[in-house]
């Protein structure tokens, strides 16, 4: 659906070139929600803005539904942009227009006659849950409501793609949740492909099917969101994931433990608990659960146990070996005191 091929964005400056995006290639499938994460300055915003050519890449090509956007004339590009909606962190609504007029502007641009515009605006306001706010000016709306208007504006011309530039970063947590819920609904009910960038892993966890992590203009990790969460490969990715999955125990508690502390990670819940009980029966070790948590990555459970194993060091070793054979991921956090 969206294919980015070797995208490179270089900003020339007096002190040499600054690389914004460094040879990024991504394939985003039709109907998926794709997240791009990274700290500010990682180049994710620049990359997103390259997709609708708000920012023209120095090198590389962008294909949407097989059409190479970089080869289009200005006129053709304007037409193509009507099928690529975009929403922003700062909403960017026209302050002198009401909610309805802001949405109608998109329709006007697409050449929809005035009589038809009103009906479509009403439909869109209902879709985003603001049917009663048609005549409000942006200054009279809350942050979440403004973002809803801007989503309606972006969806006005039935786009195939919606680009979201940190759309929830200026909102409070509960409003963020409701906007994410709306984006998910749009994705599922209208089948619109969504590409979003964010610095909040929470957003990715909630709604993204797949995601990419960016650093210094490069994509350093990419994959199914669940896999990225379950087994992050990169140090930065681990840092990001820790912001959501805080599977650590307090240092004091850890220091007070005399046994071996292990971290078990499993996909799904019940079956794996049986593995632990099997292990405890098979080996003369005692187990003590210090921490346990199940997180849902787009509704798929990811569970983590942190437990302390006590016993003879040989038995503990064998017990861990047993777990490693039967579980996806076992990590020794702290070796026990040698008895």
């Amino acid at each position, binding site marked *: 659906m969206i294919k980015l091929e070797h995208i490179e964005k270089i900003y020339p400056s007096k002190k040499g070139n600054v690389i914004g995006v460094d040879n990024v290639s991504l394939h985003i499938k039709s109907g998926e929600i794709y997240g791009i994460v990274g700290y500010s300055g990682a180049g994710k915003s620049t990359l997103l803005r390259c997709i609708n050519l708000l920012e023209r890449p120095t090198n590389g090509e962008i294909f949407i539904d097989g059409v190479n956007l970089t080869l289009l004339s200005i006129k053709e590009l*304007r037409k193509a942009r009507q099928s690529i909606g*975009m929403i*922003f962190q700062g909403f960017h609504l026209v*302050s002198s227009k009401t909610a309805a007029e802001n949405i109608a502007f998109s329709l006007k*641009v697409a050449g929809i006659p005035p009589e038809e515009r009103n009906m479509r605006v009403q439909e869109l306001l209902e879709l985003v849950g603001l049917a009663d706010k048609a005549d409000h000016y942006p200054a009279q709306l809350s942050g979440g409501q403004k973002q809803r208007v801007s989503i309606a504006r972006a969806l006005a011309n039935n786009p195939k793609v919606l680009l979201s530039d940190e759309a929830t970063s200026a909102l409070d947590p509960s409003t963020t949740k409701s906007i994410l819920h709306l984006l998910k609904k749009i994705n599922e009910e209208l089948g619109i492909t969504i590409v979003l960038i964010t610095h909040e892993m929470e957003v990715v966890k909630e709604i993204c099917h797949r995601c990419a992590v960016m650093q210094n203009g490069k994509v350093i990790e990419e994959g199914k969101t669940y896999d990225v969460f379950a087994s992050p490969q990169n140090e930065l990715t681990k840092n990001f994931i820790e912001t959501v999955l805080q599977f650590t125990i307090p240092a004091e508690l850890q220091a007070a433990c005399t046994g071996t502390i292990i971290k078990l990670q499993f996909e799904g819940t019940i079956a794996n608990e049986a593995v632990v009980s099997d292990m405890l029966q098979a080996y003369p070790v005692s187990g003590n659960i210090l921490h346990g948590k199940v997180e849902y990555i787009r509704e798929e459970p990811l569970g983590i146990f942190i437990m302390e194993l006590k016993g003879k060091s040989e038995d503990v070793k064998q017990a861990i070996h047993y777990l490693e054979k039967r579980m996806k991921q076992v990590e020794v956090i702290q070796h026990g005191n040698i008895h």
Partner: protein
Amino acid sequence: METFIELLPELNKAFFETLYMVGIAVLVAIVIGMPLGIVLYATDNGLILENRFIKIVAGLVTNLVRSIPFIILLVFLLPFTNFLLGTQIGPTAAAVPLSVAAIPFFARIVESSAREIDRGVIEAAVSVGATPWTIIKDIILPEAKPGIISGLTITIISLVGYSAMAGTVGGGGIGDLAIRYGYYRYDNTVMYTTVVILIVLVQVIQFTGDLIAKKVNKR
């Protein structure tokens, strides 16, 4: 008091002459100065009509006119006025240098009002595929409207001041009256009357301008 009543018809005429020449200049400022201001703004780096050449030329012409003090512009443009109207005396003739001065003055005000608009708002319009013309008409002008109206108020008040200068070289209007009676004839009554008229006029313009600007501001 008697002289005052005697002068009433003349005062009345002078007042309307001032309104007339300022009115023409304001009209020209809107018709030519506003588009020029939009050009100055929209041709800037990273904007919808980015064009270095036009930006520099338009900026240069604007600055050129603005660097000439009005009293000099007044004299400098006399041959041009003569060529245009066949005369250099009277309120219509005075409206020519007033208009020339008003164009770049108002253009810069329009430009700076447009600069106040969040670039993101324009970007959002670009992202839905709007043409530059649509963006100017439907986004930039409505968004800059409160600033443009405040700027127009400033322009009109400046022009009232300039019109008095135009009066000294035979342009008519309140300035002309003040010079002829107040200065050459030492007639203080006329002098004070013109000052009072000007104060009231400026107050009314400012008040009206503020009122409209406030009304159209939805921010």
